[in-house]
């Protein structure tokens, strides 16, 4: 039992983090996802982690960093596909909302009990002129083509997607804490840094607390994907990680906005980009509320307690 990063994972984290710091500054994030950015990430091995022999726990470490840098794009599905093409994914709904449609080589859709692959060129969609997250273009689709079966087990595919999304959310929560703490130390009102006021200090302490709790949840969900204990444990920890990390990202985004004052309401300050991404990710692999319900149903269902 060890829920700390191994030396290799620390090296992996630091490697991806310095690569992102150099190549994906916020100006590039603001420009949105494009092929060149994808190529950079692909060259760094982000989407081929699994085929290169990295564990799910390693993927979680990398995705936490992608979240911290607010990297735009269909990151999770591209890793789940893992063959170098850009993939989007969504759980089936009516209508469908598809992100980054114009960038996609492949679109994966999670149905009731299967996963299908759809050719994005066949998708008829209406592009939104004003997406919530300026880095995440969104298009509305009335009728999705049927597509072809994508030979993966629906449940495991979803649990991996849930866990990687939670890792991105964790990264957002972490970075939001860092941004808000830095601002609270520097912004002076009433002749004191605002971080000396308890009303602010306590919000920051709660941001850190949520982040630390979320990190433990996400790491354990990653470890469990590798170890394949009972389905009960895997579901409960994966869905639980998405709840805790998703709530942490959204709440930290709202609190950070408050701490930045008027600046927090501006386009110029990055906080809104993180908060909007947190809202986007909350809808991926279902909302925190729905994931919480799944945690409860799993925990309360004795029929699947011993199941493996």
């Amino acid at each position: 039992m060890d829920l700390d990063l191994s030396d290799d994972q620390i090296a992996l984290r630091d490697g991806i983090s310095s690569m992102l710091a150099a190549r994906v500054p916020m100006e590039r994030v603001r420009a949105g996802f494009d092929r060149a950015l994808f190529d950079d990430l692909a060259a760094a091995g982000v989407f081929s982690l699994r085929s290169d022999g990295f564990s799910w726990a390693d993927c979680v470490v990398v995705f936490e960093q992608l979240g911290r840098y607010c990297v735009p794009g269909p990151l999770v599905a591209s890793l789940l596909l893992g063959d170098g093409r850009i993939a989007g994914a969504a759980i089936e709904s009516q209508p469908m909302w598809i992100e980054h449609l114009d960038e996609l080589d492949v679109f994966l859709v999670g149905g009731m009990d299967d996963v299908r692959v759809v050719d994005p060129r066949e998708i008829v969609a209406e592009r939104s002129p004003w997406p919530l997250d300026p880095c995440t273009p969104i298009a509305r689709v009335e009728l999705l083509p049927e597509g072809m079966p994508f030979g993966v087990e629906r449940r495991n595919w979803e649990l991996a997607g849930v866990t990687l999304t939670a890792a991105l959310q964790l990264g957002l929560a972490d970075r939001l804490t860092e941004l808000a703490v830095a601002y609270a130390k520097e912004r002076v009102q009433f002749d004191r840094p605002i971080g000396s006021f308890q009303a602010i200090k306590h919000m920051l302490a709660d941001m850190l607390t949520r982040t630390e709790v979320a990190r433990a949840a996400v790491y354990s969900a990653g470890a469990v994907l590798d170890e394949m204990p009972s389905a009960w444990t895997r579901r409960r920890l994966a869905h639980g990680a998405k709840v805790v990390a998703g709530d942490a990202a959204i709440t930290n985004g709202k609190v950070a906005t408050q701490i930045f004052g008027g600046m927090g309401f501006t386009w110029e300050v990055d906080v809104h980009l993180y908060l909007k991404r947190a809202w986007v990710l909350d809808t991926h692999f279902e909302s925190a509320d729905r994931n919480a319900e799944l945690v409860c149903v799993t925990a309360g269902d004795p029929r699947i307690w011993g199941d493996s």
Partner: protein
Amino acid sequence: MELRYSDADESFRAELHAWLETVLPALAPQPPRDAWPERRKWDTEWQRRLFDAGYAGLHWPKDYGGRGASPTEQLIFYEETARARAPYVGVNFVGTLHAGPTLIEEGTDEQKATHLPRILCGDEVWCQGFSEPGAGSDLASLRTRADRDGDDYILNGQKIWCSFGQIADVGEFLVRTDPDAPKNRGISWLILPMDLPGIEVRPLKTVLGSSEFAEVFLTDVRVPVANRVGDENDGWRVTNVTLKYERGTAFVSELVDSIRLCEDLATRMAVKGDESLQTELGRCIAEFDALWALTKRNVSQATRGAPGPGAMVMKLAYSEARQRFGELCMKALQRDALHVDDNELVEERLRTLALTIAAGASQIQRNIIGERVLGLPREPR
């Protein structure tokens, strides 16, 4: 990263599990809350059983009668005892979870030899005399005096909120040994035998209707200087050792028990039929699971000698999460929440009102996290 326990850990679990299965069915029913002598007897007899079977003081060094077990074995102990509904530490809380560990770190050889074995086998029950009517969150402002008289201190003052005070044999007490020094430099940490002349204990009734803590009045109580732990006036540093255990590790078994309560509630029909309750309960479970993972992460980091901020946020996060769960229970039970008898969840709702106050109120925890972890400017003190 790995969640799986080692084979050695799993065989420890199997052995413990088998032992619990043989001893628990024979256990007498737990005495009522306010029957303190009976509670003491019940809790200390359980402690004695643990001791005889080699499960007392799991993480204490072997030299002091402990098992010298690994931190993961300690976690497994919490998991298995909660799952089997074995007794909680009860009146052994102070001795086994924070006074004992403080003595291990700070006590003299003689102090350790006198008290540690007795704590472990349930012969000695401890209480904590830190808080005073005028010194709660601002603990360092405490005023109970200890005046030196030859080889003794003479104690005068009043303590409050002293849990187990009415049945304890010994207390960890903070006293002022230098009234002229700045407030946290004139404090000493004493081992106080509770049967000394001049000590009067008056139980206080809590929201549970029972007396969970007491006032302690000290009038010319004569204590040997040899009962001091750490140097004279260095008691604040020793206090922080005690608080580290009290706030850090003492909540772990409660956390595992919270998970059990959640699972029980999740199987109830009242919850199953109601989607919004399911969502709320799922959130509680997700939080407790996350906190259990955080506990494991803290253990992993401590084992590596590199503790992270996780240990600092645990108490705050757990106590707040536990209260959210308590509210949910009240909502789920509806009018069935209007009686406490035979109603564990309601009794727990009342008991856990204290979690965000005792052992450092949540506001104080947030100050500590803000200042010590995030490096924000300090409060006036």
